[in-house]
């Protein structure tokens, strides 16, 4: 406890979530401040300093704040979170304090939530296959331990269900330990938060996970801290305690909107759709905190959920997320309408690290060519079905009709797997069944042994 602290009573103005304080001596960027009023105290952070005037963002918001009766105390410290084994099973707020008010009994470390960049020369490549039990992910857009793979979703699409399903089913084959789940709820509704917590409770993840919850009704500014707190906790458990940590962050759109709110209050020049020009760097400072480190056992795998307003994939938050992360799982409204669950659009989905996690010894030999064949054939079938709308069935050649049938079978059997959890072998069999619809000469990428298997299935059906 410091005996003396510096403060200022000269609150000059309030604008949105920001207050402007004069007579602030030697303020530091990012410094934590305490704002004392007659009605209680609030906390804030220095965003900008110009001479003795500083702009401070107030985490609790500025509603009811009166410049006349506020004293701003400078704490000479940055925002930190307390870390320790005791966090497991806790529900915290955006700043890492328990939401029910009971303090955490003991902690081992206290670290700034902004973190430090991981040395790229000390990372190690993610290369362990994670089986999610969802065929369209496992076989076609494989998730790898240490990857950051977002789910791009639209309003009304089941991103939450899929995320919860991944948390429930994800496992590294041959490794009995399951993941430590760190869940960051960023500005989501009470209903959504309840869904997640209930689903975690069901599977037991609730008691070996850590939950950082900032609801839509909580302070918007605290949303800027929520993912950072979550990731600092994740780093502690991954790299100090050797856990494989799975971080689910939802929803990054709310986070970016909070960033925009602060940016516009600071009167910064707006970029695309009013988001600040540094949105890319800011998002990267979160997403890049996933990965593996050479010589350490733990890892951080991230599954951020990003809403696409109006299903628009070129929306800046979605677009920039796509540039930073290592692929994306895209949900599709048309597939949802046709009753396909999970409605994953496999063609626009991608896992950039897939090649590192598949193949002999990891999944099965020939994984890559089979996946490539499925992609190519499905893309072709989509093309044919578009063509059919114009020229009708009569105009199609025999091969094209095969493709049309393949498309239907693929969506019905392979993509529409429901809530079942399939092993990679079961996913492969489903894929082979679909491929058997096509004649051999169209399966030009498939290796011979799998082609034989497909042939066997075909003669079986026929």
């Amino acid at each position, binding site marked *: 406890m410091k005996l003396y602290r510096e403060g200022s009573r000269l609150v000059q103005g309030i604008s949105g979530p920001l207050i402007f304080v004069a007579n602030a*001596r*030697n*303020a*530091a*960027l990012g*410094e934590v401040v305490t704002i004392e009023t007659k009605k209680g105290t609030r906390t804030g952070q220095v965003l*900008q*300093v*110009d*001479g003795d005037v500083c702009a401070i963002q107030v985490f609790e918001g500025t509603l009811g704040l009166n410049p006349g009766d506020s004293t701003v105390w400078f704490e000479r410290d940055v925002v930190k979170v307390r870390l320790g084994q005791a966090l497991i099973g806790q529900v915290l707020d955006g700043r890492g304090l328990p939401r029910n008010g009971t303090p955490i009994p003991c902690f081992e470390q206290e670290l*700034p939530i902004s*973190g*430090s*960049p*991981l*040395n*790229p*020369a*000390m990372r*190690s*490549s993610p290369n362990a296959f994670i089986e999610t039990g969802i065929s369209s992910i496992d076989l076609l857009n494989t998730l790898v331990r240490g990857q950051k793979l977002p789910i791009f979703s639209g309003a009304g699409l089941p991103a939450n269900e899929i995320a919860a399903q991944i948390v429930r089913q994800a496992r590294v084959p041959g490794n009995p330990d399951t993941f430590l789940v760190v869940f960051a709820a960023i500005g989501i509704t009470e209903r959504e938060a309840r869904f997640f917590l209930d689903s975690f409770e069901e599977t037991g993840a609730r008691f070996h996970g850590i939950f950082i919850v900032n609801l839509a009704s909580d302070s918007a500014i605290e949303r800027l801290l929520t993912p950072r707190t979550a990731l600092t906790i994740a780093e502690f458990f991954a790299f100090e305690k050797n856990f494989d940590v799975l971080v689910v962050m939802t929803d990054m759109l709310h986070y970016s909107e909070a960033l925009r709110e602060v940016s516009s209050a600071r009167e910064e*020049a707006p*970029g*695309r759709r009013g988001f600040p020009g*540094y949105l*890319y*760097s800011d998002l*990267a*400072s979160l997403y*890049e*905190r996933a*990965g593996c*480190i050479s010589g*350490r056992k733990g890892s951080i795998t991230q599954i951020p959920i990003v809403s696409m307003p109006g299903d628009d994939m*070129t929306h*800046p938050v979605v*677009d*920039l997320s*796509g*540039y930073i992360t*290592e692929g*994306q799982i895209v949900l599709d409204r048309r597939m949802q309408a046709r009753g396909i669950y999970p409605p994953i659009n496999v063609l626009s989905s*991608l896992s950039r*690290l897939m*090649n590192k996690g598949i193949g002999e010894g990891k999944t099965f030999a020939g994984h*890559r060519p089979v996946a490539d064949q499925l992609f190519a054939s499905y*893309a*072709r079938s989509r093309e044919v079905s578009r*063509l059919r709308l114009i*020229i009708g069935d*009569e*105009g*199609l*050649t*025999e*091969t094209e009709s095969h493709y049309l049938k393949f498309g239907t079978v693929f969506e019905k059997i392979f993509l529409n797997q429901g809530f079942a959890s399939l092993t990679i072998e079961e996913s492969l069999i489903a894929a082979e069944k679909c491929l058997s619809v096509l004649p*051999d*000469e169209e399966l*030009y*990428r498939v290796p011979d042994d799998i082609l034989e298997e497909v042939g066997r299935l075909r003669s079986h059906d026929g």
Partner: protein
Amino acid sequence: MSSYGQIKSLAGTVIRAILSQPVTNFEVARVGEERLLGEVIRIEKGEADIQVYEDIDGVHVGEPVEFTGELLGIDLGPGLLGNVFDGIGRPLAFAEPGETPPVFLKRGFYAKSLEPRSKWVFKPNRSVSEEVFPGDIIGTVREGLGFDHAVMIPPGMPSSRIRSIIPDGSMVSVEKAVCELESGDVIFLSQRWQVRTPRPVREKLPFTEPFITGQRILDTMFPVALGGAAVVPGGFGTGKTVTQQSLAKWCNAEIVVYIGCGERGNEMTEVLEEFPRIIDPHTGRPLMERMVLIANTSNMPVAAREASIYLGMTIAEYFRDMGLNVALMADSTSRWAEALREISGRLGEMPGEDGYPAYLGSRLAQYYERAGRALLNGKLRRTGSITIFNTVSPGGGDFSEPVTQSSLRLSGAFWALDKRLAESRHFPSINWKKSYSLYENGLRPVFLQNLGPQWQKGVAFLRELLDRESELLSLVQIVGRDALSEQDKWDLEMGEIVRISFLQQNAFDPQDAFCPLEKQMLFAKTLMDLHILVSKEIENGVLHYQVQRLGLLRGMLSIRKVPEKEFLTESSKWVEKVGRSLIDMEAFS
């Protein structure tokens, strides 16, 4: 001479300091008690704005700023190759003896870019009293398994005679003098250069030599010249990075400088893990021995991202001055431009298009124009080159945005990556209809001389066929495939074979990742022979569905794995076999 100031205001990565003495624009400053590195970027009435190359959270108003009187520079010498640096030249793999490099980058760490403890064996190739000029090579040191790193007279030194030079086989560190000139100048194993200043050359040369990438679609259809510049724009997930890494792996440059500018950390890791294990097909040595990596990943400080491309260019120029062909790759130009935009925003400058500063184009030009093939300084007539491959990440995949457009104006080859191709997993997803290369005409004589007229024929065949295919595809949209003539149906199938076997190239298949130029030519010829053969048989009455049964695509895909030496015999055998089956069919129908 150092002078001092005091921090007055702080915003993001830019600080403002009150000066006690005048300072130079772009002078290096040490900010705060932690002495964080920064650069003066604006001077105004006794105050200076400084962009700081590190995170400045927790830095107070009132802390001191020291101005060093120097501009941002880097030590150039042995030890650069195989190493990885951050945007301002600090070695990221640096560690004290017995320790491992830091896992998390703490700010304010300081290490020299060249390891002062390493010793190198010097081999002079000049002797006492010989006259030397700036740019001349006075000796070499051996790096790695077989790279002779030239020790040069730095640019700007007056020509003079050698007074003394250390003997053959001496062990020296980078800070040791190796030679003394009669003018009194001393030559060290390393030399320092300011990153924002181009290193001089005698004369720029025309673009007449090809740069071989080993990628079929690039070399055959959109070639780039030594000293040229190619731009690779594409939305996310279109394979920019994989394309660039394939280039870095298989191109015939002697040195590759790879700048990870605001991109993922894992991509750097990939290079660091993979490249030491891959053998360069041109020299037989590990690829890492010709690489210099600059990693300023997206989560590292933004201002250093701005500096990183100049740093990379300076290193490339240094190796060019040795008479080498250097490939400089930056991934991505857009992230660099965003850094520029962010700093400009902090300075409160008037924004131009899309919020980028008005000087975006001229800054980019300063970078692109430092590339090229050049006649080097020095007594002997030597040439060297820097070829640029820059990716651009246009927001929303829209190529009309300012960074893509400015890059196009400054470069000569445009390899447009296409989202739709990427979605059907056509890689490299370079769109053959939108891409272009302006170097083709300049390179034609060399191709003609080295590969003969067959090359031109093959290229023309591929172009015509792809053009025909896209025409037919739009026809199919109206009348359906069934309504086409047998020949048209076959042309469509041939187009597919070309697209899948020739244009697509599997970067992860060791037999296909690299395709030598001669093999590309033979490949094109095989395709042409096949097309002529089948077309003739179709004229004779063979039907297209019969041709379809032959599995030509599968055949072509296995042919493309055949090594260059056996390619000609194997492929002609295969075409003959196809011919025989067709004749059987003809007899049958």
